């Protein structure tokens, strides 16, 4: 028994000694071009809790940053520095690798964040799923960020472009200025206060976009899910598509003059809730069972006497207000609502 205690004590002492040595280790931020950036800072965080690895590299303001993580969580924030900084908890190795053409006098244009749970990897292959852990990235606000994550949540904010491909976990994006392409299989997608081209696709989760506008009139917003709901609120794009199979689709907000809107589901409901003074041409359709409920008076389009109504199928097509935008609302077996708000 005493021997066991002695052995454990010795092992513990060795461990603490090794940990303290590692914590003191600090590497200079290497800015060698074309080579893996070994900027290493292995230190105990200020809070005294888990050790974090920190890496940084100077970068162009429009740098493209990529990370492929096996499991864990990813937080990405834009900042005003021309620098990419990565911090990771509970990982063995963390590396920022400059890829593509490099210029000695400039910051990195492409950076791959490589993560491994082992310290022994001789070479960390780029583009392969990394280890598990919590990764935080600070990137220039003009950056394009590509993230892949097999399992875990993603939060990303204040960057120019966000491309996220997640297997199992939620994706939460805010203040994306140029383009957002967010996809996840099992999990929900939230996009808020952003602008530019938007494509959101979830398999089983909900998709929600709130307060999103186009940077130019050709840009579109497409939000799809299979069994989740699609909710679009405060969307200022002129081309909008919301589609799901068994969920519901809701559009809440103003209609852009001249815009095209398509909201479609197979077995859920479709709701369009817009201001009472809205103007648009509408085609509302239900095929099997559902009904069309409208708060708006739907009139005939120009050159016709009455709106189209086909009671056998559930079709209502006509003009609201002065027309202008084209709105298509369809549910195969659910109900379509046109609501004033």
């Amino acid at each position, binding site marked *: 028994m005493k021997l066991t205690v002695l052995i454990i004590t010795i*092992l*513990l002492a060795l*461990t*603490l000694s*090794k*940990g303290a040595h590692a914590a003191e280790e600090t590497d200079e931020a290497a800015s060698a071009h074309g080579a893996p950036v070994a900027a290493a800072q292995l230190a105990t965080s200020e809070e005294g*809790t*888990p050790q974090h690895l920190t890496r940084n590299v100077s970068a162009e303001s429009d740098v493209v940053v990529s990370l492929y993580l096996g499991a864990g969580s990813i937080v990405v924030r834009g900042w005003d520095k021309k620098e990419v900084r990565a911090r990771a908890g*509970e990982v063995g190795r963390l590396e920022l690798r400059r890829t593509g053409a490099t210029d000695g006098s400039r910051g990195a244009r492409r950076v791959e964040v490589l993560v491994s*749970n*082992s*310290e022994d990897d001789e070479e960390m*292959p780029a*583009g*392969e799923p990394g280890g*598990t852990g919590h990764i935080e990235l600070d990137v220039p606000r003009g950056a394009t960020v590509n993230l*892949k994550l*097999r*399992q875990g949540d993603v939060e990303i904010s204040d960057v120019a472009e966000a491309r996220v*491909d997640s*297997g*199992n976990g939620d994706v939460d994006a805010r203040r994306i200025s140029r383009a957002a392409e967010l996809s996840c*299989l*099992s999990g929900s997608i939230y996009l808020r206060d952003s602008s530019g081209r938007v494509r959101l*696709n979830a*398999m*089983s989760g909900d998709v929600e976009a709130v307060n999103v506008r186009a940077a130019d009139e050709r840009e579109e917003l*497409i939000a*799809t899910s*299979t*069994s989740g709901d699609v909710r679009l609120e405060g969307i200022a794009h002129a081309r909008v*598509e919301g*589609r799901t*199979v*068994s969920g519901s689709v809701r559009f809440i907000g103003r209609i852009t003059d001249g815009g095209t809107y*398509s909201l*479609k589901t*197979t077995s859920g409901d479709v709701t369009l809730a817009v201001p009472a003074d809205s103007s648009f*041409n509408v*085609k509302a*359709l239900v*095929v099997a069972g559902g009904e069309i409920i409208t708060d708006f008076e739907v009139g*005939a*389009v*120009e050159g*016709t*006497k*009455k*709106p*189209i*109504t*086909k009671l*056998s*199928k559930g*079709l209502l*097509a006509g003009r609201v207000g002065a027309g202008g935008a*084209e709105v*298509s609302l369809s549910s*195969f*077996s659910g109900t379509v609502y046109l609501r004033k708000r």
Partner: protein
Amino acid sequence: MKGKCLDEGILQGYLDGELSAAQTREAETHLAACASCMAALREAESELSFFSATFAPDPSVSVPTELLRTRLEAAVEALESAPAPERRRATWKLKGWLSALVAPLAFAPQRAGAYAGVAAVVVFAVIFVSLQTLRPRPTGDPTQDARPETAAVTPAAPQAAQSTASNADQSTEVEPLEVASNETGRRESRLAQVKFNRAATRTAAPTERVEASVPTPAATQPEQEVVQKSVPGEETYQQAIASLARAVRATGDAALTPAVRADYERNLAVIDRAIEETRRAALRNPQDADATAFLFSAYQSKIDLLTAVADQTQSAALGR
């Protein structure tokens, strides 16, 4: 097994990949239809993840440390403060814990996955090339032939035209409003273009397949006069779906977690139901372009789903 919930042993075996192929299929079928078993599976998987994370090797040391103890205590505290667990949870903890300990020693089939991924890419390439050769000749209809390339792949455009015709035909119910119908037709065409553009950015092969056999009104007219067993245009979707499904199957096991795989099966079932339902309506009334549009939309959803899953699985397998 369909009517009976999965017991703990089966669920755990499924999670650990210990079931036979037949048992796995049965379990997946049941999971796709049973919310409570799905929840139980998620819980088990969550526990396994918890233990995997908690007992992950600490890279800086070779023996337990203060850090590890802290993590364990924090994790246990978090578990204890969670809502009261179900009865079967306790045994799962132990099994999950053991699995987590053994996991680092297990063989990782990454290379096998990579080879399967390469095979999937080859399949895609072959399909793509064959589609190029099957591209339809000009129809002679200027409205069809003059459309831009992206618009040419949309089945919605001819349907919109059919819709106009069918609306006008049913004069007992519909005021024949050509202007309204035409406007609607144009709008649908634009939206469909957006839809297929999106598919094109994700995967070339399915899009090209769609393009290859989109029916023109002239081509479908004779078929509508006989009893139909298929909806014109759906074969293209079916072929694309079959190709994608093969690609997913080739790499799926290596990349999807059991919970995601079960979720995927459940969503496939959702879409298949939608396809079945809309297809019945489309076959019942071949003149109903709206029903056909719903059918194609459901097919498109399946293509989107399979593409997303294929992206995940192939990326993992190929290490892209």
